[in-house]
């Protein structure tokens, strides 16, 4: 209440431009991570919806996959899975590094993660060209392409996020042990994409 009376219009406006979190409590709580988590809840609901659709199609179709669908190769997607899962751990090292103010470490581990993500995507594309079936062949192939494709889109987006973090980390002092929201958000997103893949892999290839 103390400083209120002489707070002028101009001062208010200036503060407004700076972004309006929590007013002037000093600590400026950052709600962005919470927001990202909310966003990921929404994202997981899309995937849940698609998974549910897939499982329903599967349960109402007499033979699954329908007759005439070529056998699925397990080796490549298996390797791909291992790469993607390990990339999550690699990425975590990057965030651990920046928490110790080690920007170089961040760059290294994130770079490695990006590489692994890219390998995953290439592997996925390779698989697409060698499955021997097309999008509209039957209900299994359609769900296969739409589910993996939608996930691949998310991997691509995650990859772009990582690259953005790498780009920003070039600017000295952008990330520090105090402030590394971007890196943290990218990591959260990547873990999410990873978890989705595990479910996807299980229901599409294994079970």
């Amino acid at each position, binding site marked *: *209440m103390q400083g209120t*009376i002489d707070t002028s219009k101009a001062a208010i406006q200036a503060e407004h431009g700076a972004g309006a979190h929590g007013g002037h409590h000093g600590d400026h709580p950052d709600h962005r991570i919470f927001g990202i988590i909310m966003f990921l809840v*929404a994202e997981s*609901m899309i995937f849940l*919806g698609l998974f549910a659709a897939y499982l329903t*199609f599967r349960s109402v179709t007499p033979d699954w996959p329908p007759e005439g669908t070529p056998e699925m190769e397990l080796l490549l997607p298996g390797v791909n899975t291992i790469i993607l899962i390990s990339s999550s751990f690699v990425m975590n090292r990057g965030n651990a590094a920046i928490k110790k103010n080690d920007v170089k470490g961040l760059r290294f581990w994130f770079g490695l993660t990006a590489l692994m993500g890219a390998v995953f995507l290439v592997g996925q594309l390779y698989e697409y060209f060698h499955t021997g079936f097309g999008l*509209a062949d039957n*209900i299994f192939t*359609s769900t296969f392409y739409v589910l993996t494709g939608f996930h691949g889109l998310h991997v691509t987006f995650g990859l772009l996020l990582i690259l953005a973090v790498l780009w920003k980390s070039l600017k000295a002092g952008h990330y520090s042990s105090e402030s590394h929201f971007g890196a943290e958000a990218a990591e959260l997103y990547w873990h999410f994409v990873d978890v989705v893949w595990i479910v996807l892999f299980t229901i599409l290839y294994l079970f």
Partner: protein
Amino acid sequence: MAQVTEPETDNLGETLAVEAGGQTPWREYFSFSTDHKVIGIQYLVCTFIFYLIGGALATAVRTELATPDSDFVSRELYNGLFTIHATVMIFLWIVPAGTGAFGNYLIPLMIGARDMAFPRLNAIAFWLIPPGGILLLSSFFVGAAGAGWTSYPPLSTTGEKAGEFIWILSVLILGTSSILGGINFLTTILKMRMPGMGLNDMPLFCWAMLAASALILISTPVLAGALILLAFDLIAGTTFFNPMGGGDPVVYQHMFWFYSHPAVYIMILPIFGMISDILPVHARKPIFGYQAIAYSSMAISFLGLIVWAHHMFTSGTPGWLRMFFMVATMIIAVPTGIKVFSWLATVWGGKLRLNSAMLFGLGFVSMFVIGGLSGIMIASVPFDIHVHDTYFIVAHLHYVLFGGSVFGLYGGIYHWFPKMTGRMMNEPLGKLHFALTLIGFNLCFLPMHYLGLQGMPRRVAEYDPKFATVNLVCTVGSYILAVSTVPLIINAVWSWIGGPKASGNPWDALTMEWQTASPPPVENFIGEPVRLTGPYDYGMGDRNPNVQMPESQANTPMLSGGPTVS
């Protein structure tokens, strides 16, 4: 009489607030502003324009139905008209007006925050609406989608392909906007309440928005999933929902209603919240059963997620599932009844100021209950087997959506207009608007119950001549409804330009948004916002909220606890 303009107090904060307030330059409303108040008004005006367009489409629908033959428009166009009518009304009016407009404008003010958690995201969410809406309407040029707002395949994937694709695209855009808004509301409500304000000290509108946002977050993405699959069926030749290729149309229905049933609560919960805030102010009485109302919002939100298949009782739903969804649906009467009876108890014994806001508030309770009661009837499977996809359903949905949501939004407009614009609205015009709306609405939709029971299916351009008279009555009612918007528009425009100036708190209300200037200054409150009373502490001898507060107590409000249930 209702212009309860308060004499200027000599309170320092108040005078200052009035000075710091003032009008936002009009250009700001056409810009990518990140101020939640500007965005709220942008939402409100923009969605209201879409409402008029949706209403104009409805008027065309009713004109076609004035006679039993298909004579006013072609059959294809008729299907396009009601499809786009419903899509506009739902995705461009009720959802964005209830959550986007009032949620944005009120939540930060009510919880004493300076803005929403993510102002830029907020602006993005709004600016998705106009392109989404224009895209949707543009589909009339290529042949609008004509499979109903439910867009069931295989019909939707075999009809107007271009129109259907545009429909899918614009609903995806509008759904995205809705999700972004939901994230923002949840974060703001959960994380940005002023110090000392617990969840149980929030105005009930915030509780309702919490419940509605949770629903948005959980259900809207599933619609996106369904629409993605539908789009593939439409343009890529897949057969997810087409049995000819091994797909199953019923899967779409499940995915669609998993969103669209919760969507009806997304459309009504914010309105419930607004009513819970309007009634106590004008009845001059505390809200009755604060906690019961707050938690019943959460209960409705949860129950809303597990009842979707009541739209599919005559579709591919086996008997035992029909029974499960019937019972789950009926249970919603309990939390909703708690709200309705609590509102009635709030009003009972009060000192009612029967101004336009209050009239629409009471009108809401009265009309919504009719829709709710018919809702319970159609939840009963044996009865729904008779009336599903008939005008009985059309009557139900308009009683809850128009008699509910639109009445509530009207009430909200009259109640918060002084806050938003700093001007009072004209009362006689407001009452005229109310009278015309009430009469037109009941004339238009009450007879539809009878039509449905007697055998008139919905979504038909031509019908049995024995229904001609009743349909004509409905059409006359719809014309009265169309006319009823005129006094509102005149009132709003005229009052905004030249209405009497409103003080910060013209209604003597106690929630936080009234404890600042009208319209509020850029960051809502001058200095730290201070809560002097609970949001509903009417009749506690603390009538004038502009009491002097010793500075030492500024951060420990006197009455921080919510209303106690004795």
